């Protein structure tokens, strides 16, 4: 049944640090690689080397420019994948029971052999976390690398989602957000982690850490700055003569 579990024993999810992400897209590539070679239907591409390439991705990195009231614009890279919501609207709309949320760890998964590819779950998701694979005709989504995190055949340090394992900046963290003492939960409290689109009522498990305040231009005192001030406002000597001579020529800026 595609009813949601009343509660889950654990709430496995990601914490994504918008202050640290450098926008390298390594998580996108490693996600596509792992999830094409392992569990479920491969993430297909259409016309990959042609004029109009498209493909299925479970994780995408957007970039946003934010213009504060004063000061220069700021640029943020914004990785986005399934947030494994507690109140996941994608699960309850599924007519076949293919879409489900696990009671033991809260991971939202798709049983691909029961999916009819109606696309309604993708419509119900506010975050664009689900994509219908054009080759396979079934819905694909982030599995939180369920085939890595419990995989005894992998070395212990690799039992993490591929995106977390590969991130060179340490911008992605994986853990149990249902345990207030876990590293990820403490990180969320310390840094003021927030939900995406809280008004949609989905109660996402994944959290985002806000960017730390940037240095400003104003109010900075550099003791050496006065010595760098221009010493001559008007050119003198040879440059002064050149400036006057060129200015006197027709087309110059002097009358």
């Amino acid at each position: 049944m595609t009813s949601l579990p009343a509660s889950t024993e654990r709430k496995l999810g990601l914490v994504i640090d918008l202050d640290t992400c450098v926008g390298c897209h390594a998580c996108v590539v490693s996600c596509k690689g792992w999830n094409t070679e392992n569990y479920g239907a491969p993430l297909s591409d259409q016309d990959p080397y042609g004029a109009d390439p498209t493909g299925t991705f479970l994780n995408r990195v957007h970039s946003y420019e934010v213009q504060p009231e004063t000061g220069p614009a700021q640029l943020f890279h914004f990785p986005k994948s399934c947030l494994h919501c507690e109140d996941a609207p994608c699960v309850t709309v599924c007519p076949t029971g293919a879409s489900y949320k696990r009671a033991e760890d809260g991971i939202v998964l798709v049983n691909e052999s029961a999916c009819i590819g109606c696309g309604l779950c993708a419509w119900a998701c506010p975050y664009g976390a689900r994509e219908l694979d054009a080759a396979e005709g079934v819905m694909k989504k982030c599995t939180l690398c369920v085939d890595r995190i419990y995989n005894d055949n992998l070395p212990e340090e690799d039992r993490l989602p591929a995106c977390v394992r590969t991130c060179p900046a340490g911008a992605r963290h994986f853990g149990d957000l249902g345990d207030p003492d876990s590293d990820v939960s403490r990180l969320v409290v310390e840094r003021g982690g927030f939900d995406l689109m809280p008004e949609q009522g989905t109660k996402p498990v994944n959290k985002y850490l806000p960017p730390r305040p940037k240095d400003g231009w104003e109010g900075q005192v550099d003791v050496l700055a006065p010595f760098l001030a221009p010493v001559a406002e008007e050119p003198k000597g040879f440059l002064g003569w050149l400036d006057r001579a060129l200015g006197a020529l027709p087309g110059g800026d002097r009358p």
Partner: protein
Amino acid sequence: MHPAPSIIAFTTLSGLGLGLLFWLGIDPTPPTGWVGAVFFAIGFALAGGGLMLSTFHLGRPERAIRAFSQWRTSWLSREAWTALAALSVMVLHAALVVLFGFSLSLLGWLGAALCLATVFTTSMIYAQLRTVPRWHHWSTPLLFLTLSLAGGALLSGRVSVAMVLLAITGAVQLWSWRDGDERLARSGSDMASATGLGGIGTVRAFEPPHTGTNYLMREMVHVVGRKHAQKLRVIAMGLMVVLPVVLLALPFGHAWAGLAVLSHVAGVIVARWLFFAEAEHVVGFYYGKR
């Protein structure tokens, strides 16, 4: 949202067919014999054909039978059940009426109620989606139901009832367009809430995550054709409501009535195209689009 032709055809035709079956169901003296057979056949062809068309947009249509399993939570699954129940009961009713000239009013009313329930479940598939504020409103089921009743009355030749219902449908549609234009802003979702970066300043999409397009943008960020929305609204209203009412007001003739039906169907198709094409999904905010 992407206006998929199969979905537009499905909702338009099944709405009309179920509306016709509703009026045939509650009719105390339904047409019998060959006339009755033709009326019921049109109803079943539209309703059943429309439902068949709905499977065309599935990625895996061969598994469509599985859609009956999740009626406890899913409106799509409930639609499958109500449609099956409505068509089954109405086939029984039609067989009694056409073959034996015998109308069991209880059976007819049950079938009629199930026909309306099917239209309602279809509309709730859209109205339940909080992610599409234009649809997430009680006016969506109201519009689908009045449209189905008006179209059914028109098809079944109930001239005065059809005129009143068409006028009501027109009013509901006009109000849905007007109010619908404001629902995205009222939803509280915007680029600031989508990214959580609004506390710093004004958020602008700087670079999309990919060089081309993707499934999400094709399916949910459909902006092509919205620029002609106002003209299409006028065309839809004219064909769907105004022209049929004018034609029905003329001295009755089968040619005028047939023209009124064709005009109405064309108008509903345009209105249904707008229903999808104009609907904004909040995921568009991640792409800096509506």
